[in-house]
């Protein structure tokens, strides 16, 4: 690993100032992604500002029935929180479907939002990657694309966003609270991650000095009946080929409320708004679920290696909604 200066921040403002004053400085949370990328030489921060001592590890109730999750809450702790279980089962399920128990004990919620793609060409310093080196080209385009995205991709980048948790957060309209030298602001989940376009190296709406301090989950009554379903190449400890976060309320055979988001297929955590709009107020049956899935997947851009994802995503959406409607 390339040498770097290490700063252990004692409070949020100190952390933000330490990064703002140092071009190339990075915040360090649980380390499960950044340390790996630093060892591979993909991330090369001159300064690492360790934020794990900051007082951001609480999960607090919000007055409206929502939850405020500190950025340093570990994935395992959040998955075990009884409030998350009761109000947002899709969040617990997404967390427990991700990584391994050891990694979940280390990984933080804030870091989860900022994890980088698992595209093997991004990880391979010998490969061309526009995300790693703007303008270098993309070896994934003609390469092995089994794990790559089909929605929101561009000719510059087809990397899939790797997070499970973020898929559930997208479905729930979570809000990300961030602090920079200019103060605190709140970014809706839908605006937090950027589509690649021709600047795939710009992955989020964060300014370089901004630290994720919390994620707020609004009260979403329909989420009490929700599910995260993940399809992958082995039963555990693998990234999603396709995943679905869904919440559904059916009244008298009609969809009264629905939330739907997809993982493994999007260049960012993919809120399936086209499908939601088709479903709302309509029949809660298999045909309607399939039509909604097809509408969402209609703009998909596939390659020989990931063309299977359209059909797999459709089937997973239908199966998840069917389960919730039963």
């Amino acid at each position, binding site marked *: 690993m390339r040498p770097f200066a290490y700063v252990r921040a004692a409070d949020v403002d100190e952390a933000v100032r330490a990064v703002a004053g140092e071009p190339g400085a990075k915040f360090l949370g649980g380390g499960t992604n950044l*340390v790996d990328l630093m060892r591979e030489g993909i991330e090369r921060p001159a300064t690492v500002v360790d934020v794990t001592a900051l007082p951001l590890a609480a999960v607090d109730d919000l007055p409206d029935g929502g939850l405020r999750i500190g950025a340093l809450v570990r994935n395992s702790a959040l998955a*075990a929180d009884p409030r998350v279980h009761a109000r947002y089962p899709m969040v617990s399920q997404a967390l427990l479907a991700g990584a391994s128990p050891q990694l979940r*004990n280390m990984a933080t919620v804030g870091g989860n939002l900022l994890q980088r793609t698992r595209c093997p060409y991004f990880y391979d310093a010998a490969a061309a990657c526009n995300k790693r080196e703007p303008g270098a080209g993309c070896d994934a385009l003609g390469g092995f694309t089994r794990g790559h995205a089909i929605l929101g991709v561009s000719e510059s980048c087809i990397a899939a966003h790797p997070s499970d948790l973020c898929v559930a957060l997208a479905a729930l309209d979570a809000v990300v609270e961030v602090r920079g030298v200019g103060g605190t602001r709140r970014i809706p989940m839908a605006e937090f991650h950027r589509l690649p376009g021709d600047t795939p190296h710009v992955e989020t709406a964060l300014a370089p000095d901004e630290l994720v301090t919390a994620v707020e989950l609004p009260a979403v009554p329909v989420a009490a009946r929700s599910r995260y379903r993940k399809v992958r190449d082995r039963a555990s400890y693998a990234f999603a080929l396709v995943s679905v976060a869904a919440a559904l309320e059916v009244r008298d055979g009609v969809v009264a409320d629905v939330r739907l988001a997809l993982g493994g297929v999007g260049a960012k955590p993919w809120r399936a708004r086209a499908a939601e709009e088709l479903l709302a107020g309509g029949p809660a049956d298999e045909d309607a679920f399939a039509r909604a899935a097809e509408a969402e997947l209609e703009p998909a851009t596939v390659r020989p290696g990931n063309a299977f994802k359209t059909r797999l995503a459709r089937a997973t959406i239908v199966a998840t909604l069917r389960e919730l409607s039963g």
Partner: protein
Amino acid sequence: MGVTQIRMKVNGVTESLDVEPWASLLDTLRERLGLTGTKKGCDQGACGACTVLADGVRINACLALAVQYDGSEITTVEGVDHPLQQAFVRHDGFQCGYCTPGQICSAIGMLAEHAAGMPSAVGASGLTEDEIRERMSGNLCRCGAYNGILDAIKEVL
């Protein structure tokens, strides 16, 4: 870019160390403290061979910077005295043995997590075989001794 002084209690012994901030906990345990029981498999958080307990919680030491564990209590396989060890021998919970220290530390952490009510993706009420396999999925065994590992863990329940 100097060194940082840290203190860790490792297997009950307080260690004061000057570490480079980029030194992993794994390398620090192996190279500085001579505790080579903890193994380096993938060195990227994919195999679990480096699993140790930090304040009783299982983690991958390869992705942990030693500086981040200043003040922590670390247990490696050298500090373990648990019936699991004999159970692994009795049930052939290994062939080459390279993953075994990580499997043992991980299983100890897993049992503590289950006792504390930590859920898993399987969601069974007790530690069924499916539960154990899911909860141990962060530890790979390329010899394929999974059935023996499962039997060894079941024996100590």
